[in-house]
């Protein structure tokens, strides 16, 4: 089974749009690091039974601390290191601050990001949802991501994918 490392920002967005229940129909195993689990436990325990938790240890944890020391959030830092450890091409993240940090720091550019629209694309292809823009607008509104890097990134992704 293909694997995906997903940040809490995206999981919360999917939950608000009532799409979290479809996560196990994506064909991907959704993996989160320990720090993302902590964030989820605080706000929404319902997400936890849809994901696999893979805590970082040893060298991976040290690498993650290094990212945290340059200002990256704990959740995003652990997602990046976990994806690297699992040899995945990208992480799923909709954190505005992280998108900005990644753009401004050349060293972070190698970390590739996808957003919630990645799941919308899958849901459409699997005929789980019918109208991608209905859910795009719903998520943007419910998460207050209007006029943000996240709205622009997910919109451009969908347009580039032919929607």
């Amino acid at each position, binding site marked *: 089974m293909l694997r995906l490392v997903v940040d809490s920002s995206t999981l919360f967005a999917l939950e608000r749009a009532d799409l979290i229940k479809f996560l196990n129909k994506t064909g991907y195993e959704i993996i989160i690091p320990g720090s993302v689990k902590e964030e989820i436990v605080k706000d929404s325990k319902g997400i936890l039974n849809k994901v696999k938790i893979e805590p970082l240890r040893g060298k991976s944890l040290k690498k993650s601390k290094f990212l945290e020391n340059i200002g990256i959030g704990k959740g995003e830092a652990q997602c990046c290191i976990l994806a690297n450890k699992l040899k995945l*091409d*990208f992480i799923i993240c909709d954190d505005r601050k992280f*998108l*900005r940090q*990644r*753009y401004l720091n050349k060293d972070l550019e190698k970390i*590739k*990001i*996808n*957003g919630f*629209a*990645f799941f919308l*694309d899958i849901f459409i292809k699997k005929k789980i949802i019918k109208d991608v823009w209905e859910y795009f607008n719903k998520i943007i509104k419910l998460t207050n991501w*209007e*006029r*943000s*890097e*996240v*709205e*622009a*990134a*997910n*919109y*451009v*992704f969908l*347009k*580039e*994918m032919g929607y």
Partner: protein
Amino acid sequence: MKATIVLDKNTEKELKELLELEKTSKSKLIRKAVNDLYLKEKRAKENFLFFVDLYRNNVIDKDSLFILLPRKDAEAIIIGTKTGKEAAEIVKAGS
């Protein structure tokens, strides 16, 4: 409407310079600045995704975005467009 405004040293210096350059009154300059900000905010509020499309399709460049929109919106479009295009490339390459 009458207003009392408090300026920091830098803004005061810029206002004095502008008064000389534009040869106009403080009130007119402030009205013009507010109007410029208002138009930029309105454009961004009502047409954010339209500007994303223009930039994505290389119809307008970064400089034009900064002229037409508030700084934060221009930055969001530039960062978001790069991120979104990369994201689509990854998915297309993988499928």
